[in-house]
């Protein structure tokens, strides 16, 4: 695969590359933002309660808990 050397491309080549890319992007099918927001919200909310950094981790289940302390048995 030929190496595309952006730093040595002429300004004209860069401009052509940009236009070609924009022509592709203009054809994208875009979903309604309202639908996307709903989905993001639902996805996050369904996982928030089980998110260890949000709800906290009980001391005994924390693999990073600090060592030390005495146990009287």
């Amino acid at each position, binding site marked *: 695969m030929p190496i595309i050397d952006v730093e040595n491309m002429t300004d004209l080549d860069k401009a052509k590359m940009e236009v070609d890319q924009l022509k592709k992007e203009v054809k994208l099918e*875009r979903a309604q933002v*309202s639908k*996307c927001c709903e989905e*993001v919200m639902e996805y996050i909310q369904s996982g928030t309660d089980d998110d*260890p950094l949000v709800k906290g981790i009980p001391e005994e289940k924390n*693999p990073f*808990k600090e060592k030390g302390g005495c146990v009287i048995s």
Partner: protein
Amino acid sequence: MGEMEQLRKEAESLKDEITAARKAVNDASLQDTVSGTAVVGRVQLKTRKTLRGHLAKIYAMHWSTDSKLCVSASQDGKLIVWDSHTTNKVNAIPLKSSWVMTCAYAPSGNMVACGGLDNMCSIYNLKAKDGNVKVMRELAAHTGYLSCCRFLSDSEIITSSGDCTCVLWDIETGTQKTVFAGHLGDCMSLAVSPDFKTFISGACDSTAKLWDIREGQCRQTFGGHESDINAIAFFPNGNAVITGSDDATCKLYDLRADQELITYQDSSIMCGVTSIAPSLSGRLILAGYDDFNCNIWDSLKSERVGVLAGHDNRVSCIGVTADGMACCTGSWDSFLKIWN
């Protein structure tokens, strides 16, 4: 009209069309959608471990998929693989070039990679039969610094570079499979989608680009930032992307709406974002800043809900474990801290 002028006009006209198309689907805001949701409670994470051993600025860290081991890269010329539960150093790998800017752990756990001002991506085999960690491959072809690298598997890795391109490499043969060109500024960061079919890159041209790995094409370009994008990550569901920029803001872009949903900013924050990572559910966005702190954002409500303060210099890298149990920050103060 010269050809250059014609192309410039064509580009402007296409950009206007795209802006209009995005506006046409922009029928709601995330703020309004979540108005009935309460802000998540104050998040107070504690430093559980401090990983000490590097002798100079830490530039990068990456968790292994086992959520226990992690690798860090420092300009002391070392890659260190840590057992984050015990703080023991599993491997201390001396590098040929100390000007390292990035490191990565392979999903299999068999390899790590790094690179920087040497313009190369060096792959190290952690599981060599004789027990010694050696350079397995040196991937050389970039004409600029290596800013980021991420393994797809033990046989493929993607790199981003100051030469404005990203490259997909065949590790076995050491050759470039695909060159992803399109950014008009240094590529600073990349992240692979959860399904490994696409990746996103953030660059000094203030844009983020979504690339189809197999087709070798840029699918989408996201603007809006006013300065270099230094950090980028996929949202856990793979349908959104978060970015962190020198313009002191983070943004959430939705891939299907092809636009920004929200910006995470505060007038009191005036320094650049260096690193970014979502929590397991995506509810929290942890972002490292030049002012030595890491801010924790409620991703839905766009409010700061916590701060990780504990480093004595810039937070250069951040990562959340795959199981979501902890986050790790790496700093120019030479320490890594594990928080939860």
